[in-house]
């Protein structure tokens, strides 16, 4: 029995071994046949090719995809320009050629060294771009003296231009040559001469925008003249990008922000999540970065202490201040800490632990329910309810409303911000949570940090009665968002209060109301430093003459129209003073503008 089993095994082994050997032999035969074809049958063809060494492969660079705003207005385009190239292989000596060329174009020492360094890095037959976007007069001079300039030729190229300059700079970013590190990244073509997106959408959509390079196989004689084209594969232009952004609103917002040193305005279409506007100032002109020489411009950007390269909407983190109170109120209602009718009395301050916690209104608001507390932004009310709630419940609700997260909108380097919790503090700071910190968090100060865009998403979710609005920067068909009815009862109360903020006499933003179309919102004023007792007593601390950097940030979040919300906004003016006096009027202007546009 055992032996027959083993015999069977050996028979199987041997039979299959034989088959496998046959398979391998036949595969080897196939390879051998291929080699035979190349070395014997086609040998003469390859021999002539090898003698003259005349096959060259030329890359045809693709045109970068265009980018449009939602109304098909071009916001990133390609402009025809003329560049000067050098092919090291075709020169007798690179130095000689550069000498002759310097009669027409100024080549300084650094430039010359850079060109020579570059020639050692690329393949000899590859062309190197040595001057970009040359003027018409230079073009003429070089063209007429072409025969004295070995290895130099002029080719048409396309330069990326952004017609609206600084309006979309943080969103679109800019393009530039890949550096050594980027060349080794996936999705970056291994072509050192092809621009890639370095920031913003140009970066995140680079694989789409870049297109496909074509190639030309050409036969060249010994003197370098092209004899014939053997094959040509055309390049394919990159895909077009259609953004959700509206040029008119974006431009309007950027212009409004220009009156201040730094700030951000974000507008989201609540119904489909489309981002209509994401403005951040100070900004920069990407055209000036792309056009060489750009050193001076770069230096001016880098030396600007307000860091114009930062997209404040996504990368700026601010204490949300009173705009955070909606979250705390929803949490308190949800977890039964208060009902819509519960009241707390505000005397201008409360004592907790061994500290005093002040309301912005020194004399106090008196008896407050949740609606009034939001309408008049009473701090004491929120100290009281957050004390009872505890930080972890606040954090839970905040995260449900999009705070502390980054969004899938293809914008690189978004900042998460901080939604503090006991666990967060333990893991990041290694300390345990103090109850007093809950109070401070309850009015959006302390550890809480949010980006302006997160606040806009938060407002969108509130305005849409809890639907999880997923923002998008691409023009999209109507999306059905997940309905989250978890908080719908609480949101109703909050929305009433947000209506009052703008539309009743006592509301903090009453001065910014619109007559023909009513909107709702919430002001916020976030402290950038703690106010000392002596300052508080002297009542000096709210004076406008304070040093700019010490002034409060002004915030406003809101949505329009109040009864059937269509658009949500967040406005932040850095060190702008109070939300009511600075941010709310800006939101009003933007809303009014959108309303007049009749989208």
């Amino acid at each position, binding site marked *: 029995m055992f032996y027959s089993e083993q015999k069977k095994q050996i028979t199987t*082994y041997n039979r299959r071994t034989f088959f*496998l050997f046959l398979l391998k032999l036949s595969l080897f035969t196939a*390879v051998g046949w291929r080699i035979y074809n190349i*070395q*014997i049958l086609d040998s003469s063809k390859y*021999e002539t090719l090898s003698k003259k060494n005349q096959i060259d*492969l030329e890359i045809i660079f693709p045109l970068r995809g265009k980018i449009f705003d939602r109304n098909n207005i071009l916001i990133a385009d390609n402009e025809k320009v003329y560049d000067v190239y050098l092919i090291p292989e075709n020169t007798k000596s690179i130095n000689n050629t550069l000498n002759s060329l310097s009669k027409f174009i100024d080549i300084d020492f650094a430039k010359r060294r850079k060109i020579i360094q570059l020639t050692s890095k690329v393949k000899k037959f590859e062309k190197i771009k040595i001057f970009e976007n040359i003027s018409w007069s230079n073009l003429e001079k070089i063209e007429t003296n072409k025969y004295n300039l070995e290895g130099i030729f002029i080719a048409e190229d396309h330069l990326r231009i952004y017609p609206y300059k600084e309006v979309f700079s943080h969103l679109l970013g800019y393009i530039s040559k890949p550096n050594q590190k980027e060349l080794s990244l996936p999705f970056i073509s291994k*072509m050192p001469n092809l621009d890639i997106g370095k920031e913003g959408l140009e970066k995140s959509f680079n694989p789409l925008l870049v297109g496909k*390079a074509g190639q030309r196989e050409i036969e060249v004689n010994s003197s370098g003249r092209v004899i014939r084209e053997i094959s040509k594969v055309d390049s394919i232009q990159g895909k077009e990008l259609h953004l959700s952004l509206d040029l008119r609103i974006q431009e309007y917002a950027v212009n409004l922000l220009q009156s201040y040193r730094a700030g951000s305005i974000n507008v989201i279409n609540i119904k489909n999540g489309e981002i209509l506007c994401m403005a951040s100032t100070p900004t920069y002109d990407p055209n000036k970065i792309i056009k060489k020489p750009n050193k001076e411009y770069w230096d001016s950007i880098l030396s600007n202490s307000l860091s114009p390269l930062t997209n404040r909407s996504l990368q700026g983190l601010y204490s949300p201040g009173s705009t955070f109170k909606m979250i705390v109120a929803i949490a308190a209602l949800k977890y039964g800490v208060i009902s819509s009718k519960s009241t707390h009395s505000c005397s201008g301050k409360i004592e907790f632990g061994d500290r005093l916690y002040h309301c912005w209104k020194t004399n106090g608001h008196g008896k407050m329910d949740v609606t009034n507390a939001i309408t008049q932004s009473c701090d004491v009310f929120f100290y009281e309810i957050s004390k009872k709630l505890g930080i972890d419940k606040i954090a839970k609700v905040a995260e449900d409303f999009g705070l502390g997260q980054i969004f899938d909108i293809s914008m690189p380097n978004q900042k998460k911000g901080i939604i503090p919790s006991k666990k967060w503090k333990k893991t990041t700071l290694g300390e345990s949570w103090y109850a007093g910190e809950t109070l401070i968090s309850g009015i959006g100060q302390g550890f809480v940090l949010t980006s302006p865009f997160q606040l806009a998403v938060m407002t969108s979710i509130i305005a849409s009665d809890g639907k999880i609005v997923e923002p998008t920067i691409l023009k999209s068909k109507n999306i059905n968002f997940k309905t989250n009815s978890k908080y719908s009862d609480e949101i109703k109360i909050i929305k009433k209060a947000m209506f009052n903020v703008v539309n009743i006499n006592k509301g903090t933003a009453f001065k910014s109301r619109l007559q023909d179309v009513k909107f709702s919102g919430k002001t916020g004023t976030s402290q950038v430093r703690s106010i000392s007792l002596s300052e508080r007593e002297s009542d000096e601390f709210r004076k406008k003459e304070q040093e700019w950097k010490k002034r409060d940030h002004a915030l406003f979040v809101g949505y329009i129209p109040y009864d059937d919300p269509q658009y949500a906004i967040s406005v932040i003016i850095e060190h702008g003073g109070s939300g009511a006096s600075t941010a709310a009027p800006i939101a009003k202007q933007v809303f009014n503008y959108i309303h007049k546009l009749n989208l």
Partner: protein
Amino acid sequence: MIFQKLKNLNYLLIFLLILLSFIGAAGLYSAADGSYQPWASRHLIRFYVFLLIAIVISIIDIKLIYKYCYLLFIISLLLLISVEVIGVLGKGATRWIRIFGLSIQPSEIVKITIILALAKFYNDIKFENVKKISYLFFPFLILIIPFIFVVIQPDLGTSLSIITLGIFILFIVGIRLWKFILGFIATIISIPILLQFIKPYQRERIISFLNPESDPLGQGYQLIQSKIALGSGGSTGKGFLQGTQSYLEYLPEKQTDFIFTLIGEEFGFLGTIFIIFLFVLLIAVCYFISFKCFHSFGKILALGVASNIFIYVFMNIAMVSGLLPVVGIPLPLISYGGSVMLSIMISMGLVLNVDLNYNLKKLNNA
């Protein structure tokens, strides 16, 4: 005892190895414009050292090798994983690890330990159990774990060769053909699912690897130059050191993956077909050893090693002649590179060992 063993070594096999590595050295000598530096001399020194290692391996007690198969497999797997971890920490893909001043590519070593582990597994189970599905689970693990770690490196050439190697071995031990077909279909279906599990940066690495159009100049150019070199060699070649090489200058891998084209240019069709013939002979010797061996362990081991060499040779020549995309597989014993040569010579040591112990009745744990 040792002298007896040394006397009985399969000298035909050793002769073939020496011949192939000498051809490699000649090619490398020519690739360096007629100089032993930087490749040819190191190639030969490595070969002698590794040949010594192979002979030492060949005279080790086969029971000892048999006993530690799984352990060796796990160690090589850990090396492979450590490369991935180092790659992550160093923020860059790497396939190498430095041991005793030698850059080792664990994915090459792992191929040998896969053969060992599978040989032990199928040696140990009863033949009637081979057909049972439940007995497929373990071999599947042996193949799939290293495969996944090689794929995410990403080294598509090596990961493909691991799978092919596995299929060859599983075929030999008597797995039914329909299971291969089923497995193939299952693989096709599970690819998108598997892609979900790996980290985004790894996914990007693989996708960009599969998309050679990101480098249109590189590969197209390499292939044209490679074909010109081969074709211009004709039937008898331009003669040793007579290759013009002007077009090979742009081949970044002329001393490694494209060495075959260089030899093809200088020695022509006669040279290339002779190399193929030598490899066929080498593989046939391994097959013969597998055939005459009494125990399954040795049979599978010799056959696995033969298949491993076959995969290298076939993929490399098919690649440089344009039958397969350029995936970066060297030609064993001829291409420059210590890691592959070490793994080939270790595996040859194992085959020599099997050849010395072919008449053992059965290996088991007892």
